[in-house]
């Protein structure tokens, strides 16, 4: 067992850390206020290989060999340290591109990859609450009706990869009206909702009818969310640690109070554990280990708990300053929510799945 990074991984971590510290953190507050990413994001991130890293090279992307979820988890942790809302945009294309690349028809690949290589975005949706209805169109395709979202990137996405009842659908959103919304979390992530009315998905855009494929896609997303959540938790405590070293109350820096040391230490312990679980899940996905899906789910459960607790406690360490938007932890506490909420309540999913087999 080797926990060390290889040279390529270390270079990626160093590069993304510089990007996160310099650019993402620098842009985060303004992007949050504006409810939109900075114009430079696409250019700068594109040069770093985001958006098309999961698109096969022969389709104009950068993926020349097997996709590495471990590398994605390493990078996700750093992105989470930078800005979770912008990170959501940077990571949004991965699941649709990988799924369509692996299981999609030539028509689905052509449609999605043409958009992504031209600078388009795609989003992953999981109808975990069963709010969408599906009618077969008699030709192997389907018509979808019901609400979609709120989802990050949906406001500007050209496609959505929808996971529903064991089936993966690739939705072409051309002509679908989106309502841009601004939740309190990941405000820069171009959220939207859409109301589908007998939205047609042709047979060649039904990416997979294999429930194992759906489970695999959701496991990719869970491992990625867990890694980013660990990064957010770590960032919250990095900010809190700096503040606690400077803020003096009762004649000493508040960072010397044992109760606050415990808050910080417990959060960092949790963040370290969540990062390792995310990396383990990513390794399991890369190696097709039988435990991969379970590992990704467990990683997300832990990371969700950790990021919630850490960001709440970071605000606590900042006190009144944590509750106002002068410092980044107020935003991070808001930004912690989607890590537990997106794609449904992870614990509930685990409980129901286990109950079904007992």
């Amino acid at each position, binding site marked *: 067992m080797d926990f060390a990074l290889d040279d390529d991984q270390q270079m990626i971590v160093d590069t993304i850390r510089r990007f996160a510290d310099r650019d993402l953190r620098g842009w985060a507050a303004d992007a949050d206020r504006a409810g939109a990413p900075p114009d430079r994001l696409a250019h700068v991130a594109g040069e770093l290989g985001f958006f098309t890293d999961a698109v096969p090279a022969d389709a104009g992307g950068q993926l020349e060999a097997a996709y590495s979820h471990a590398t994605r988890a390493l990078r996700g942790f750093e992105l989470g340290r930078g800005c979770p809302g912008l990170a959501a945009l940077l990571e949004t294309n991965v699941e649709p591109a990988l799924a369509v690349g692996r299981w999609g028809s030539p028509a689905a690949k052509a449609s999605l990859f043409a958009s992504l290589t031209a600078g388009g975005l795609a989003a992953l949706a999981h109808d*975990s*609450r*069963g709010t969408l209805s599906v009618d077969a169109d008699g030709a192997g395709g389907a018509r979808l009706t019901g609400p979609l979202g*709120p989802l990050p990137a949906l406001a500007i996405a050209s496609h959505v990869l929808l996971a529903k009842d064991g089936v993966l659908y690739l939705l072409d959103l051309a002509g679908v009206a989106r309502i841009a*919304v*601004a*939740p*309190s*979390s990941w405000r820069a992530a171009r959220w939207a*909702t859409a109301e589908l009315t007998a939205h047609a998905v042709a047979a060649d855009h039904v990416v997979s009818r294999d429930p194992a494929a759906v489970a695999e896609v959701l496991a990719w997303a869970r491992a990625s969310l867990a890694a980013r959540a660990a990064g957010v938790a770590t960032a919250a405590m990095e900010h809190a640690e700096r503040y606690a070293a400077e803020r*003096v*109350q*009762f004649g*000493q820096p508040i960072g*010397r*109070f*044992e*109760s*606050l040391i415990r808050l910080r230490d417990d959060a960092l312990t949790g963040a370290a554990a969540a990062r390792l679980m995310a990396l383990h899940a990513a390794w399991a996905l890369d190696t097709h280990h039988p435990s991969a899906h379970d590992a990704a789910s467990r990683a997300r459960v832990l990371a*969700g708990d950790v990021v*919630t607790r850490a960001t*709440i406690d970071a*605000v*606590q360490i900042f*006190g*009144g*300053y*944590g*509750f*106002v*938007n*002068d410092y980044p932890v*107020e935003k991070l*506490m*808001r930004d912690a*929510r*989607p890590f*537990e*909420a*997106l*794609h*449904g*309540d992870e*614990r*509930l999913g685990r*409980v*129901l799945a286990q109950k079904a087999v007992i």
Partner: protein
Amino acid sequence: MDLFHDSPLLTGVRQMLGGFAQHQIRPIAIQHDQEESMPWELMRTAQKLGLSQTAVLDGRKKLTGVAEDPDPTKPKSQGRLAVIGSEELAFGCAGICLALGGSGLAASPVARMGTEEQKAEFKRLLAGDDEKGHIKVAAMALSEPATGSDISGLTTTATRDGEHWIIRGSKQWITNGQSAAVYVVWAQTEPAAGRAGVRGFLVARGTPGLVPGRKETKLGIRASETAQVHFEDVRVHKDMMLGSPAVPGEASGGLADTKKMLDSTRPVVAAQGVGIARAAYEFLLDRVRGGSLHGTPMASHQHIMFELADMQMEITAARLLTHRAAWLADHHQENVAEASMAKAYAAKVAQAVTTRAMVLLGEEALAPGHPVDKWYRDAKIYDIFEGTGQIQRRILSRQLTGMNPT
């Protein structure tokens, strides 16, 4: 000890303010949260119910129509009325509850330490409407940029100049800080005297040198205005120093009295935390009743129902702690530890319940304007203001051993 039912007055106030919260506060709560705006019209309406900006000075008569028994040895009901009312209002919206009661923070020290002339002046300054046509509000200006939990470290100074005091300094996180018609500002009058030198002053809006500062953008309680306030050589007549020594036998008006006053407000703040938790719990309960999950009743799932059972237990426990602290105050018994327990525990419960509600609701709660998202953001301040959770535990620790642990 009957905490709840020894007076039909308490039940009546609960019903009245509960209805007000449900029908008047809830419908506008999300709008004011999103706009970060004060509910000025509702504040005017609330005055008709007795929720005036000077309610603390007016006693319970305005709210209930019944005056307290003037016999100081008889139990009062002010404390319990306050916690019952606060829970109901915060159940509607914590930010609006604070907007309705924000002036009470300033009125409390005036009621406790002020001379009759100062009380009359405070009420005079709050009479009528301001230049924007809003009802007038008051602000308690205690915290400073460098002084949050440690209120003994105030750096705002008041220097005597003949018949006046000259106040200089900046205040932070001041409720109603931009809009107040009158400020109760705390300043150090004798640096060598330490805490004993800190005194409160009434300062009217428009006094030269009083500069309302930037309004804060906050995580929650966004219907309540929070701002910085600057005092740039503000000249205040000596009669406006609370608890003037010219009045023999009156309270000293110093920081010690301020701390006692905070003891009295902690159960009220705790009750607001209970109200937020109850709001999230009842929202979930309503969703679960009749709701289904993959074809089965939501109520048939332990995963959901045991969470609700835990929430019910925790909310009940927090409410009992809160009412005990208020009951002790009403019965003229010391409640320092009980008030801190109530404040710390209610804050913890408010955060825990709203956090778990967010998880159980999943993506639904991410939607803009979702009430549970708002309650989750509102809850956090209850572990910070009016003494952080750490300060409450420090108070309790000191009660246990006499030492201040660090």
